[in-house]
């Protein structure tokens, strides 16, 4: 049985459609990341699951129970907010205990749960402090702890790491992943950071303008983006999207500049996608005039002109090439994605059925 079932869930604010018919089943122990650009409706979706935003139409089941119109407290969820939302005048202990107290749990049980969670998150020494005396990372832990003690069926997290610096974010990301494996609960996690999504998610839900674009495991959405938007959004550096033409089994970028086309691709104009890491310098490939070079340490990123298209090519470290030199690049057939030029939808090719 799915832990969370979202069925045709929709949200309108007056005339604005914030979320357009989301369908999603979350299994127990599954970590789902809602990913998309700003304003795409991630938070609204999460808040509808939390019960902080009413559901305009559709249905929401948690552990098989219809909770569509229940108050947040009756949904068996816990939430971690972007700005932590810790009660500033309460101690850390009281912050974590508050939800349990409101539910009338016996004091001994509350104390036990708070202690357990505090130990798990390594914040035992902070319990007597107030939120104002904590660093951002510590507050984030407390916010997690407050959700953890509740032991809910579903954890909801809205950009929980966005206020932390890059290093701390990476560490907390790992910790959340570990924690989630350990407690084995369903988790819905909102972010606009695709690295966070790729590293954390069991499955990613990619949204745009209130609509779900694709649902799949990180590698599925990386390997087989459902449309050009997903292709451009997932992966770093961004996938090269080139207006090209399929003709005679080849992808024609311009006169005399070719890449291979996936077998079975129909002739005609397409939007072709190839990831920088798949478009690598190769003897005898298509000519790329280098216009910019970014050294990343272990890797080198070339930015240049390929048959009149601006593209990026990434390879292992190279420091033998200068700007304005011409290199030749190639990509394997399997690394070429084709999309419809108008709709942006993925075009079926032979290998994919």
């Amino acid at each position, binding site marked *: 049985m799915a832990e969370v079932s979202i069925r045709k869930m929709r949200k309108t604010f007056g005339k604005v459609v914030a979320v357009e018919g989301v369908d999603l089943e979350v299994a127990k122990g599954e970590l789902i990341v809602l990913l998309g650009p700003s304003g795409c409706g991630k938070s609204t979706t999460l808040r509808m699951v939390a019960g902080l935003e009413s559901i305009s139409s559709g249905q929401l089941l948690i552990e098989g129970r219809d909770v569509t119109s229940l108050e947040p407290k009756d949904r068996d969820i816990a*939430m971690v907010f*972007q700005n932590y939302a810790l009660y500033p005048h309460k101690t850390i202990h009281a912050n974590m205990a508050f*939800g349990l107290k409101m539910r009338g749990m016996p004091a001994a049980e509350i104390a036990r749960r708070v202690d357990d969670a505090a130990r798990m998150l390594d914040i035992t020494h902070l319990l007597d402090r107030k939120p104002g005396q904590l660093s951002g990372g510590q507050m984030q832990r407390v916010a997690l702890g*407050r959700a953890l003690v509740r032991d809910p069926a579903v954890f909801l997290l809205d950009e929980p790491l966005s206020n932390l610096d890059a290093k701390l974010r990476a560490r907390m990301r790992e910790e959340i992943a570990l924690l989630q494996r350990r407690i084995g609960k369903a988790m819905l996690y909102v972010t606009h950071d695709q690295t966070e999504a790729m590293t954390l998610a069991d499955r990613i839900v990619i949204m745009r303008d209130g609509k779900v674009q694709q649902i799949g495991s990180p590698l599925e959405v990386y390997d087989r983006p459902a449309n050009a938007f997903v292709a451009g959004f997932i992966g770093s550096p961004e996938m090269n999207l080139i207006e090209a033409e399929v003709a005679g089994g080849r992808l024609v970028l311009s006169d005399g500049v070719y890449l291979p086309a996936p077998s079975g691709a129909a002739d005609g104009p397409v939007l072709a996608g190839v990831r920088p890491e798949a478009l690598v310098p190769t003897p005898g490939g298509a000519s790329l005039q280098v216009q910019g070079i970014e050294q990343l340490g272990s890797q080198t990123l070339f930015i240049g002109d390929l048959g009149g298209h601006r593209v990026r090519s990434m390879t292992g470290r190279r420091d033998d090439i200068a700007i304005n030199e011409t290199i030749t690049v190639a990509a394997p057939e399997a690394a070429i994605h084709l999309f419809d030029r108008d709709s942006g939808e993925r075009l079926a090719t032979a290998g994919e059925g």
Partner: protein
Amino acid sequence: MTRWLLPGFLAVGVVATLVLIVGPALYAVSLSFYEIPSLTADPVWAGFANYAEVLGSGEFWSALWNGIVYAGLAIILQVVLGIGFALLLNQPFFGRALLRGIAFLPYLLPTVIAVLVFKWMVDGSLGIVTITMDDLGLPPIYWFETETASMVSVILISVWLWTPFVTTTFLAGLQTVPTQLYEAARVDGAGPVRRFFHVTLPSLRPILTVIILLRGVWMFNKFDVIWLTTGGGPLGATEHLPVLSYRMAFKLYDIGSGAAVATLSFFVLMIAVTVYFRVFPIEGGK
């Protein structure tokens, strides 16, 4: 040039404060040590005689008590009602902006006008309240006739005039409480009442501390409402220290005793404020 600018401005401020505030205050205090039988008579040094006389009189103590009752009840009502209205005006509803504006109006009225209007409205023969109640078959209320009614009336007028101050200040404060705190409390299972006591009130505690302090000091020193309505009567039932001081100085021409009452009033207030700050440290929060 600029080197003298800051000290220059400061000097102006200091001089103005000395001349306009500290000077008169000290002068008033000094008067309390003299016997001054009239405004034109020469003061005669009297030491603490005025204080002895004032403190030995029942008038002073009953005026002090009246002032505490008047200020205390007025503040409690202002704060409770003010917070209530602020919470109501913070709910989304049609015409909220208009109502917020209207709610502030009483505060803009000069006290004299408000009090006179109130007296007309409850006038025994012509007042609109009196006539309306009569039309409705209700028994008349004698607003300023009995001792208790007078006290209740001056308190009600004060509450009506200054509740908007509390409402507006508290309403402004409400805007600063992060909505995420309320959402977290909702997820934690706190209903509206618990959200008020666990989120709103603690967040606005510093503001509330200042509101109560300011309103307390103002109410304790408030002269015009009582003077214009009851003049301290009937039988001194609403006479508090400011009115007593005024009556002694300008009705009985015992300026020394009037000044002594004012000085004592100042000390009472100072002690009250000091205790208040001990009990409710203003930095609150952390």
